[in-house]
């Protein structure tokens, strides 16, 4: 690991000031991704600004009409919060399925949203797009875990965020703050970005900005996440699906279906949501939603299996939401 300067300011204003030195200054949250990435030489910040001492970024506030979650709230604290557990079983599943008490204790809400992809080309020094000598390696390479949607550009990786799909489906808003000190609200639907060039950011967070909190409408909905994975211990899933709807006399209203780990961003499956809208969520409508979710999928040479998994994940998430 390259050496760096370290600061742990007590308040957000100081953190933002310390980040003003530009791209070489990085935010350190739980460190589960960043510290490893630094050891591997994928990133080499000149300065780390740790947010761990900033109390205003921690905790879950359930007093308003949104549930406001500080960016430095640990994933363990998030999943064990009573209001969160009651309102958002889709989030609790997404956290618990991470499969490691250690990661869940160390990892934070803000850090989860700002993770780098797990793509092994990226992790082994071939960049976000997996390039060697100007040639992309992923289309004909080991793309088993790569994207089956949104992969027509150079980005073939999948978004690593565990919370992303659930937050998008639940209609959350992510708030960031930068040098102007004005809070900026970003709908979760617009938070994740698919880069078109290697310099493009992966999120809507600008250089020098800090994710301060996430707000989710405190509305009773039926919601669930279903994950399909190779192993039950610490790992990233192959495919996830989150289904959210409002129960309107036994029929689904305002249905939303979001897939995870199938695209460079959480993938909004509008067709699947339409298949549930206005219907009782049962075996038949859930099956239709699954089929609709994978229409237009563009699997790569070795990940066609993920299309079937996505179909099943949507169906099972819908049935789990109906039970929630």
């Amino acid at each position, binding site marked *: 690991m390259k050496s760096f300067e370290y600061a742990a300011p007590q308040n957000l204003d100081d953190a933002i000031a310390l980040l003003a030195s530009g791209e070489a200054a990085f935010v350190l949250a739980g460190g589960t991704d960043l510290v490893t990435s630094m050891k*591997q030489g994928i990133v080499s910040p000149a300065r780390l600004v740790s947010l761990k001492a900033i109390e205003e970024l921690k905790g879950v506030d359930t007093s308003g009409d949104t549930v406001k979650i500080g960016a430095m709230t640990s994933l363990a604290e998030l999943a064990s919060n009573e209001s969160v557990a009651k309102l958002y079983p889709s989030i609790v599943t997404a956290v618990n399925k991470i499969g490691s008490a250690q990661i869940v204790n160390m990892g934070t809400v803000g850090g989860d949203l700002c993770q780098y992809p797990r793509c092994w080309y990226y992790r082994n020094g071939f960049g976000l797009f997996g390039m060697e000598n100007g040639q992309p390696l992923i289309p004909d390479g080991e793309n088993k875990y790569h994207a089956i949607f949104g992969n027509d550009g150079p980005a073939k990786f999948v978004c690593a965020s565990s919370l992303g799909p659930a937050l998008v489906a639940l209609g959350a808003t992510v708030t960031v703050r930068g040098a102007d000190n004005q809070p900026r609200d970003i709908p979760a639907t617009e938070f994740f970005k698919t880069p078109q060039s290697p310099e493009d950011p992966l999120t809507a967070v600008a250089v020098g900005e800090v994710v301060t909190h996430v707000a989710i409408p405190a509305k009773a909905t039926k919601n669930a996440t279903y994950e399909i994975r190779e192993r039950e211990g610490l790992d990233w899933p192959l495919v996830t699906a989150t289904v959210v709807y409002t129960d309107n006399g036994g029929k689904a209203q305002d249905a939303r279906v979001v897939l995870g780990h199938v695209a460079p961003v959480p993938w909004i499956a509008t067709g699947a949501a339409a298949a549930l809208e206005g219907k009782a969520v049962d075996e038949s409508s859930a099956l239709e939603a699954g089929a609709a979710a994978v229409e237009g999928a563009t699997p790569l040479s070795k990940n066609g299996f993920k299309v079937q998994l996505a179909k099943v994940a949507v169906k099972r998430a819908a049935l789990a939401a109906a039970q929630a």
Partner: protein
Amino acid sequence: MPTHDKPEEHSGLSRRGFLKTVGAGTVAGGLVRESGGAATVAAQGPEVAGPAAIPLKLSINGNTHSLNVEPRVTLLDALRNYLDLTGSKKVCDRGTCGACTVLLDGKPVYSCTLLAVEAQGHKITTIEGLGSPEELSAMQSAFVEHDAQQCGFCTPGFVVACTAFVKDHPNATLEEVRAGLGGNLCRCGTYHGITEAVLQVAKGGA
């Protein structure tokens, strides 16, 4: 109070690393330091420490240890290389295998992925703090009883993680044990013995 001040093995930037850093063009001017630069406080603000070694105080197994390490030193390296607490093992060194597990304020964390500087102000418990060869903890005894190890390299991390798990889940079922210990790997495959050991301690209410 013991003081530990070992020279950093990788002090400063190598010539090659320095050239690479400058060549990358992304490092803001003024942040690049010469090799071995003694300045510990940057001009930008009094709260900035490093990149040279900084004094730390760590509370480990009830004792306070003072040491001087660069901010880039992980808690695991501080324990093993500066404090001679070698029970926590370095295996994957990337927050995946769990062999380095320690407790931070009673909660299991990967010490390989936590900077030592960030462990200040917290109570750290390592495997050395859980029992001794003369006086094994309940979990250590249960591991012996159930043959919960083969090569033994993952064992300290498992014992620490299992100890924390049982404290939080005193009536854990087999399924909960399996799910709760997903953050630790045993390449010998002694999971059966480990889950038996955990279930025994859980039933014992330890």
